[in-house]
């Protein structure tokens, strides 16, 4: 199919006895953002490494831009750009020299290399630091330079491996803007992230990866329907108080260990007021009151029955 940018079926990869990717099926349409969502250690980086020909798969077939990654690696490489998890910039070279290096190595740079470099520096707001070595750049600037380097060959499919991990909120937003601009130009983006809101903001389709398997796939809205919505959490000081409060809210679930009550709601002021009024009517007061919006933990709890564990990424 001509409008499929990336198609994988039965993709498998193991390191020794550790199965990292356990039969992954993907279909990414051209010109869309596809997000692979998962905690550290889920296999996201390995997936990117295999899809970008950096690692060989143990099984399954993958076609990127219509080319088989195993037998037509060169053609795949010519069509893609990759920005890895760790900004792959040359620290001893200046921003401009880094971009020039990419122009020199690129076989398909359209037009005059110098102009391409200047345009990218302007587009990524790096003109002022263009003559400084990349080692002096902040994390956000490095990521921008990294992405600018990826764009030198004008790739139509771009892989971004956790592009905003470790960035401050402002740099994150800048990154999101850049991704949106790229998609507007018709570029296909394959993005991995551990942030639900990032996938929500950017992705047309999201696939949730857990321990090497895709546990869910769909649009952000489709996924959200599968996970618990916003809820209010009340924590009491005694079991007696919890016992008294629980019957007042029929939808609620109790957590006896924490002396807490979880009450589903929309998080709006009206429903909150009603909730507080109800407690007041019965002369009850909670020790702690929190409004909880769903995050990656909730997605995982709902889809896999376990929370995200803080693991370190197995593969580099």
């Amino acid at each position: 199919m001509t409008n499929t940018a990336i198609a994988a079926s039965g993709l498998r990869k193991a390191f020794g006895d550790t199965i990292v990717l356990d039969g992954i099926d993907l279909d990414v349409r051209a010109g869309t953002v596809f997000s692979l969502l998962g905690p550290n250690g889920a296999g996201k980086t390995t997936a990117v490494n295999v899809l970008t020909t950096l690692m060989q798969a143990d099984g399954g077939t993958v076609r990127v831009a219509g080319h088989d990654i195993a037998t037509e690696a060169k053609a795949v490489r010519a069509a893609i750009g990759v920005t890895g998890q760790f900004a792959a910039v040359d620290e001893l070279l200046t921003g401009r020299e880094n971009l020039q290096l990419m122009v020199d190595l690129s076989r398909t740079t359209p037009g005059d290399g110098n102009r391409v470099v200047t345009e990218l520096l302007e587009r990524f707001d790096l003109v002022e630091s263009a003559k400084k070595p990349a080692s002096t750049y902040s994390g956000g600037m490095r990521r921008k330079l990294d992405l600018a380097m990826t764009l030198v060959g004008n790739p139509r499919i771009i892989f971004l491996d956790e592009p905003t991990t470790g960035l401050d909120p402002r740099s994150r937003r800048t990154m999101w803007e850049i991704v949106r601009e790229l998609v507007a130009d018709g570029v296909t983006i394959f993005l991995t992230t551990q942030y639900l809101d990032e996938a929500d903001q950017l992705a047309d389709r999201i696939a949730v990866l857990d321990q090497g398997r895709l546990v869910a796939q769909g649009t952000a809205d489709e996924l959200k329907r599968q996970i618990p919505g916003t809820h209010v959490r009340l924590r009491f000081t005694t079991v007696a108080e919890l016992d008294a409060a629980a019957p007042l809210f029929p939808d609620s679930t109790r957590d006896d260990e924490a002396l807490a009550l979880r009450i589903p709601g929309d998080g709006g002021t009206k429903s909150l007021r009603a909730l507080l009024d109800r407690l007041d009517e019965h002369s009850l007061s909670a020790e702690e009151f929190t409004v909880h919006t769903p995050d990656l933990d909730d997605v995982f709890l709902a889809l896999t029955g376990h929370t995200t564990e803080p693991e370190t990424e197995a593969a580099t």
Partner: protein
Amino acid sequence: MSATTNSKSHSMVMLRRNIKHVTRNPTSVFNAVLMPVIILLMFVYMFGDAFDVGVDYVDYATPGLMLLAVCYGLGGLATVVNSDMTKGIINRFKVMDVSRGAVLNGHVVASVLTNLLAIAALVAAAFLIGFDPSAGPLDWLGVLGMVVLLGFAAGWFTVALGMAAKSPETAGIAAVPLVMLPFFSSAIVPAEMMGPGLRQFAEYQPFTPIIETLRGLLAGAPSSGDAITAISWCVGIALGGYLWASATFRKRA
């Protein structure tokens, strides 16, 4: 564009990049170029009178220090090779279809050029303090050839060390024995003057025939026996280093 021309132009781009690296890292310039000159001055002025080597000490030591000049740059080489492998930029190069050859050749050739610069500085300094070789133009050509061959051998071996190390720091440490090895050869004092054990080591380690070859050439009396041994060592080390480096490159993604 054919694959060969592509790889050739990539090699040139990589070489330019590596040369920029050398010039922008003051420590590596100091270690590679100035340190051998300082050691020359130190040995000739501080210790030179203490060693009885039969000839003017500067004439004896300069060929040995040429080898030291090659080795002093190696710690930096191992470190930069490893940084390339561990800091993610290698993946960018791979995705851009930059060949293994281009990446590694760039490092080795830049290292050989640094070696030549260091040796030029060393020889110039030696002449200033009374170095008086009796080498003819052909002998000098032989010296150049020997030094370049040694540079490639040491370069490939160090690139392999750098690739095999886990981090840039351990890569730097892995190259230390190479930097020390010239001291345990006939570079500074003749092997006969060393204690038992050390003496045998100094006589049979690869650097000694290389130094003796250089010494012979500079004295205008090259010894073909030493030269054959020296060339065999260099070719062997270069080939071993090349194969090891290439194998490690394939293994590390």
